């Protein structure tokens, strides 16, 4: 869910590795980020909408990854995928580290690019390159 830079890059790699991939985005122009010959499916729709998730095949998915710009939208759609569609592996990107930590206790795998980026850059400051 979300065909921005991160979403499109993941879709490309998962497709290349032989997985069956569907990319969901509200804006069909975002699909321009996908490479020529992309073998996955592109679905236009709102991932917070149950019907759109259904049409995108959430019922058969093994994994769901939410990477829109909105933390709360990602959380809402991830919980829908898990609770309503029974998707086993759900990953939710959360920019706010505080919120991410709490969401992690609520049944989701979360990733905070903010914390990860801060950690990585602080590590770069030390001469050895390790924190």
């Amino acid at each position, binding site marked *: 869910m979300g065909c921005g830079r991160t979403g499109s890059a993941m879709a490309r790699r998962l497709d290349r590795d032989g997985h069956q991939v569907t990319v969901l985005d509200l804006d069909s122009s975002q699909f321009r980020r996908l490479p020529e010959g992309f073998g996955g499916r592109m679905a236009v729709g709102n991932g*917070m*909408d*149950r*019907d759109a998730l259904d049409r995108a095949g959430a019922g058969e998915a093994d994994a769901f990854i939410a990477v829109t710009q*909105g*933390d*709360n*939208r990602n*959380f*809402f759609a991830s*919980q*829908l995928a898990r*609770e*309503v569609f029974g998707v086993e592996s759900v990953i939710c990107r959360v920019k*706010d580290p*505080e*919120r991410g930590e*709490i*969401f992690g*206790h*609520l049944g989701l795998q979360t990733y905070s690019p903010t914390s990860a980026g801060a950690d990585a850059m602080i590590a770069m400051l030390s001469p050895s390159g390790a924190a």
Partner: protein
Amino acid sequence: MYVIIAGGGKVGYYLARELLSGEHEMLVIEQRGARAAEINDLLEGAVLHGDACEASVLDGAGIARADLVAAVTGDDEDNLVVCEIARYRGVPRVLARVNNPSNALLFEKRGIETTVSATDAILSQIEQELPVTSMVPVMQLHQGLELVEVRLSETSPVVGRTPREVLLPPESLIALIVDSGGVPRVPGADTTLTVGDALVVVTHAESKQMLQEALIGGAHGFDT
């Protein structure tokens, strides 16, 4: 009882007004600065400007000792997040307003109590269909009093007047004026009613016809 209300829009504001008159301690958290300042005056300073989806804002609001958190913003995803964080912080009772009825299922799965207002749902569907000058019921209050919203058009007899110059039927009061830019104001002596203003009016069920004539126009205008 300490009640935290997330969202200071129409629903949050009127809910807070109800609680203010009772014996509860209450705090409204509103993200939009102008709106927060506006209702803070009306709610005796019980408004915190901030994003209720941020755990640190909720912590600052004293969520640890809250008895009830009601998330009543216009966005269901925000309401879900507020309720989830509140419950994670140990709040015994959380309640969410569900704007899109199809989202009620997820709240139910997450074990969060919800309120879907049928009036809200229907009104949001038909709002665009209504003529520009019309009276939309917002909420039933007690003892026959109701809250209605009236949007002023060019043909309204009250355009160009101040609220004080408008003769309203008994038990009616212009509580709030929201201009066409969406900025809410408390009616004052120097307020001029303008085309496009939405007036939130308290009225009695039996006075609605007269109110409509006074504000929108009709055979028996009540304006002076």
